[in-house]
């Protein structure tokens, strides 16, 4: 695929940090092209650079070398605030701001219409009646869904989800997974979802990128990467997960 057609492209992306006086690569020469309206699972063991990769794409951190291109333009040439409205990021532990559900949905776009807020509430399967309730009273699953609605309020083209179900029970996990799939298939939003669970990657479908020690070691359809890894690191990761 040519650069101009690609929605989001990573080119030899690296980030080094200084840990205990030594430079260490937490993302190492990652290259990949993400297409519009698809889901990509970012899989890998703890500390493999999954969250760091999302932070680089959202430009919360600066790459040491390499580029992230959005619509063919290097993100360093774009206004970071505008970029982040187009590429939303959901943290592993979502933070809701003091106030009501409605306040949170309108956090980034205070001028958003009441109709649009209701539409978003419907999208995340939250009763419009609780829109004016304080967020403190919400369950973890509801908080996660409100955070997703807040993310969608800016009409992003890409969303980055950092282990959105890690703190949820199986029933709530299923609700979020279905919601994310709907966002991808119906709204056509490209979604990059970090997970440490290979089964979840298979359930979500789409493509999976396997990161080990900051390197992209394997990618392809989710079932292939999880069930039939082609690389030594991929096989080792699978064995470890199965054992």
């Amino acid at each position: 695929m040519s650069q101009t057609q690609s929605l989001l492209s990573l080119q030899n992306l690296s980030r080094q940090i200084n840990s205990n006086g030594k430079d260490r690569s937490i993302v190492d020469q990652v290259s990949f092209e993400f297409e519009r309206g698809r889901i990509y699972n970012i899989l890998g063991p703890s500390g493999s650079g999954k969250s760091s990769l999302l932070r680089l794409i959202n430009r919360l951190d600066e790459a040491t070398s390499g580029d992230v291109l959005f619509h063919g333009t290097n993100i360093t040439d774009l206004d970071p605030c505008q970029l982040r409205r187009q590429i939303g990021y959901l943290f592993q532990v979502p933070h809701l701001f003091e106030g009501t559900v409605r306040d949170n949905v309108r956090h980034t776009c205070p001028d958003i219409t009441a109709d649009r807020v209701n539409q978003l509430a419907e999208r995340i399967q939250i009763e419009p009646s609780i829109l004016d309730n304080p967020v403190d009273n919400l369950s973890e699953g509801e908080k996660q869904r409100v955070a997703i609605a807040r993310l969608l309020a800016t009409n992003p083209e890409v969303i980055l989800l950092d282990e959105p179900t890690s703190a949820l029970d199986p029933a709530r996990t299923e609700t979020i997974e279905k919601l994310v799939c709907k966002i991808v298939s119906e709204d056509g939003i490209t979604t990059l979802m970090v997970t440490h669970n290979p089964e979840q990657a298979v359930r979500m479908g789409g493509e999976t990128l396997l990161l080990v020690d900051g390197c992209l070691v394997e990618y392809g359809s989710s079932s292939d990467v999880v069930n039939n890894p082609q690389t030594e690191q991929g096989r080792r990761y699978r064995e470890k997960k199965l054992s």
Partner: protein
Amino acid sequence: MTTPGFTEVFLAFVLVAISIVIGRWWKIPVAKDMALGSVRAFVQLIAVGYALEFIFGLQSTPVVLGVLIVMTLVGAQTAAGRVKKLPNAFLLNFSAMLAGSVITIATMYVCNIITLEARYIIPLGGMIIGNSMNASALTIERLSSDIRSNRLPIETSLSLGKTWRAAAHKYMRSAATAGMISILNFMKTVGIVALPGAMTGMILAGADPLEAVLLQIIVGYMLLSAVTITSVVAVELTVRKFFTTHHQLRHES
């Protein structure tokens, strides 16, 4: 009241002795601090007294300004000690204190409320710099600790497309308020809960109470201005240490 001399000061030392005895009786382990503190206060203040007498006698504006700069430098060093983790803490405190002090003193001078005579400018400058020092230290300390302990909410705002200023606004406001809180409390209770030092000193020295009150009001307004400017400048300078120009929260902050 008799005009105090060294004899009166030594006699007043009876009060220190009473305090030490009470401390020992109650087994509060402060007797040593009390004794040392009293001696230290005596030595420091006597030294300052002689120094002021010498400076007042010189009647030199550059010397007066030099004294004010030295006071600000020492104050900034003391304030920086409270925020050791922050790089360039001395420079931050010094700049904020200098802004608060210079703008306040210059305004008073332009309005013809004060002259640059050492007799007025040094005591007033001392009060201004002392209050600015506390405001600066409190503001910077609060802002630093709030930003460090609220990384998630701040990064959440940034990740949603807010600017660093919008993401940190809540903490900037709260830090500036922390710096101003003591002068605001002072303004609310002055004359009711306690009679302030400048006014008390003037009345004790035989000045007309109304004259003393008017001076105290000016001092109060002066401190309010100095503290407000210092706090706001401290916030504006400090917050930039935590963010990059690309609206990123620094990791090492």
